[in-house]
């Protein structure tokens, strides 16, 4: 292999290309990822990938922002990207809130990187994917096929340096597996989904994934459209997490400052039930988005955004913090080296409560367990918080789950939903970087026929 310039050296090349009065930041990233897909006892797809790139953020003397990036650049190409970012900045509007963060100590998180995972032979990944498919198709005779059965891992490194003096790096391993099953009975077909993420493949609950994907499909066989009614609703973590995504945008200071949040001017107000606490915590090791610092080098931390139902804080990066005359919460976020940092969540979750999920069912007599919602992305207005979504689930009777229900619609608003939470489960789990336990909502309108 030819000599590869280290990420740190690429960052240094960028910083050294800064001219007088300019602030320059280099964000360098490299990753190696693998993915195996199993079907009918064979590996259908085996992928492996390597990538690296550098993104340059340049703020000119007048607070003008320019950005440029390059995939797998040489040091010369990094310098060229700095020059491009300079040209781009010249055409941007001046904005005094454009500044780079100062360096500050960041937490040490050595457990993010597991050398045993980084060194795992690909044969082991292949065996795990095949095993997952085998388990998934041998639990219930009505579930003999998978639509998707994959396992994958990645090792990534991030290095960040700036003319303000930031100089930091970390490495992390990520692993995941997913199974989507098809349950069939006569003409009826239902799908069921399960997913786990973690730092090491050997720590994922493989049997639970198989069992869950099967159960969630099989129990929906024969599902019918229910009559419209106002009933108690239990949202399991799969369904509840979809709504949390909408909430995260409303809690971003960027949305607030630009007049796009339903929570603008509500800081300190009671906006939800007293048992609802929503937190963002980049230091939570079991959360998939764990990292010692955010995407502009500010230390990660725990921020309670909604505390016992009270709106306590917004998510900030350095720009919004400066504009809002406060401090960054370490929530600068970017989609890799190709974009400059905006505001985003790290590990964003609804804190677990004391109740077993079974207890929630007991308290929802005649109600509905919602196991999947669709159309949240299209059906929810993040600005007004109103939504109308499609849902599937099961009827709850005497604490148990009865017939499957399909083609339901649920219409409400985010504030109504937050206020209506009457119990929070102890089964918190993460889906991508969003986590929730099961929640019980006292009453919601569930539309059907």
């Amino acid at each position, binding site marked *: *292999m*030819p000599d590869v310039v280290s990420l740190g050296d690429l960052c240094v090349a960028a910083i050294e290309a800064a001219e007088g009065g300019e602030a320059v930041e280099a964000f360098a990233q490299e990753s190696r990822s693998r993915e195996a897909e199993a*079907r009918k006892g064979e*590996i*259908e*797809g*085996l*992928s*492996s*990938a*390597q*990538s*690296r*790139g550098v993104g340059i953020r340049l703020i000119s003397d007048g607070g003008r*922002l*320019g*950005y*440029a*990036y*390059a*995939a*797998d650049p040489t040091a010369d*190409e990094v310098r060229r990207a700095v020059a*491009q*970012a300079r040209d*781009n*900045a010249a*055409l*941007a*509007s001046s*904005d005094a809130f454009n500044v780079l963060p100062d360096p500050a100590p960041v937490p040490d998180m050595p457990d993010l990187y597991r050398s045993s995972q980084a060194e795992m032979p*690909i044969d082991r990944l292949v065996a795990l994917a095949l095993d997952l498919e085998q388990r998934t198709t041998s639990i219930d005779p009505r579930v003999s*096929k998978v*639509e998707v059965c994959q396992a994958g891992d990645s090792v990534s490194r991030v290095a960040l340096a700036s003319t303000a003096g930031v100089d930091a790096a970390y490495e992390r391993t990520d692993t995941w597996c997913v199974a989507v099953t*098809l349950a069939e009975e006569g003409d009826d*077909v*239902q*799908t069921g989904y399960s997913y786990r993420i973690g730092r090491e493949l050997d720590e994922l609950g493989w049997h639970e994934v198989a069992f869950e994907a099967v159960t969630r499909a099989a129990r929906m066989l024969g599902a019918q459209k229910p009559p*419209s009614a106002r009933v108690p609703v239990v949202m399991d973590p799969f369904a509840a997490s979809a709504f949390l995504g909408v909430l995260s945008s409303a809690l971003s200071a960027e949305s607030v400052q*630009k*007049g*796009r949040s339903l929570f603008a001017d509500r800081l300190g107000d009671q906006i939800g039930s007293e048992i609802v606490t929503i937190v963002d915590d980049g230091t939570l090791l079991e959360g998939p988005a764990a990292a010692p610092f955010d995407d502009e080098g500010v230390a990660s931390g725990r921020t309670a955004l909604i505390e016992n139902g009270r709106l306590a804080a917004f998510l900030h990066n350095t720009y919004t913090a400066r504009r809002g005359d406060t401090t960054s919460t370490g929530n600068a976020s970017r989609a890799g080296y*190709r974009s*400059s940092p905006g505001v985003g969540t790290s590990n964003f979750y609804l804190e677990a409560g004391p109740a077993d999920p079974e207890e929630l069912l007991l308290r929802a007599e005649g109600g509905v367990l919602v196991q999947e919602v*669709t*159309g949240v*992305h*299209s*059906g929810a*207005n993040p*600005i*007004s918080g109103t939504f*109308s*979504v*499609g849902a599937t689930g099961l009827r709850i009777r005497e604490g148990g789950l009865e017939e499957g229900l399909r*083609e339901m*619609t649920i*219409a*409400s608003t985010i504030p109504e939903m937050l206020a209506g939470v009457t119990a929070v489960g102890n089964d918190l789990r993460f889906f991508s970087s969003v986590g929730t336990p099961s929640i019980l909502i006292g009453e919601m309108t569930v*539309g059907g026929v």
Partner: protein
Amino acid sequence: MLPLATGSMGAMLDRDLAEEVLRAARTHGGGFAEIFVEERTSTSIRLDDGKVEELTTGLDRGAGIRVGTPETTSFGFAHTNRLDRDALLEAAEAAAASLRAGTPGDVADLRALEPPVRHRAQRPADAVAAAEKVSWVREADEVARGVSPEVRQVVVSYVDSLQRILIATSDGRWVEESRPRIRLVPHVVAARDDNIQTGLHGPAGSAGVEFFDEHPVAETARIAAQRAVTMLDSIPAPAGEMTVVLAPGTGGVLFHEACGHPLEADIVDHEASVYRGKIGERVASELVTGVDDATVLNGWGSFGLDDEGAPAQRTPMFEQGVLSGWLYDRLRADKEGVPSSGNGRRQSYSSPPIPRMTNTYIVNGSSTAADVLGSTPQGVYVKAMGGGQVNPATGDFVFGVAEGYLIQGGELTTPVRGANLIGRAIEVMSAVDAVCDDFSTWEGVCGKDGQGVPVGSGSPTLRISRMTVGGTDA
């Protein structure tokens, strides 16, 4: 080496090296090996709150190497964004590792393929000064704000890109293509007291900046702003079963999601398509004829050769309500011994190709929109669609309605908000009882298996006699 259509970067890969890499990828045999090399330059501009927040220019490049085995539709795939010989051979080895054993396969002489159609930029965006692009973004902001004092916020996103690709395959395909793309999207927020509504509009093409001659920036901004302002007068949508009339373009979005995805050959092969086993059967109203057409000149979802080197074509999907066939990529087509329909697409070099739609259209019928609306006593009119989701196995879908109106006594009356269209593909498409003659298109980015690709959709005005509307006015 063939001269490239545009660009001064020279060839992306030497032919001898391509052959060497293909040979390495076929170390353990397999049905075929393929290299996809890509270089993409792009410029994006974002204006928010009256400020040009950011200009970004980027350079992406890399190669994806695949070894495919059609009999089992299985593949090994590896990608790298280093294009040196060592990195490419290493990736070829990783892709070949998916095959446990087997004798080395052949590599045929590479022959250049000509596309059936070229989607050229008349005035390439990369030759236009960034300052001019900034002026379009500012114009969109000013026009949108000028529509009404109730316009509170405007975000304008502009992006142009030039994707240069090179494909070499072990059965001798050598493809070079340049694909320009351009889009400007104003996103407008209008407010009246506590009532906040949004509107966006974003025509897009595989073209140069001449695209804006046909789709003037000011007009795009006006439509987006008017949509947001109109929705301020909206009432919560009714819920229940009713007649739905879909404006030109919007029915194509529904057709893409609800009918197009289940026709993709990988979904069918996975036995997860609601249309499986139904070729030749009536699956929609006889008024519905639908096609997928990558040859639409300068269309957003168009190309000359697909990402596996198969020629762009117009593929029948439904003919007068009867299911015509599937949308194929190479793996699935080779397995069944049929030609690919030219639907093998990938987001970039870093993803393997899978069957995807291109420009998916319901073609014109013979009714007129005025007659169809006039003969609809009650229902909902969908002027603009939001996003949607479909479960291909069951055909269940949900779509958001971005701009909708009540139909009362054959006329559009009050705007409605919060509406969702909910139904099952076969039932809803069978309930189409009018197809008009006023075809129009709608452009978007379609996501599948984590890959986003530009797609066009299109349709004339359609009427669905009965379907479920999920509204907030229960």
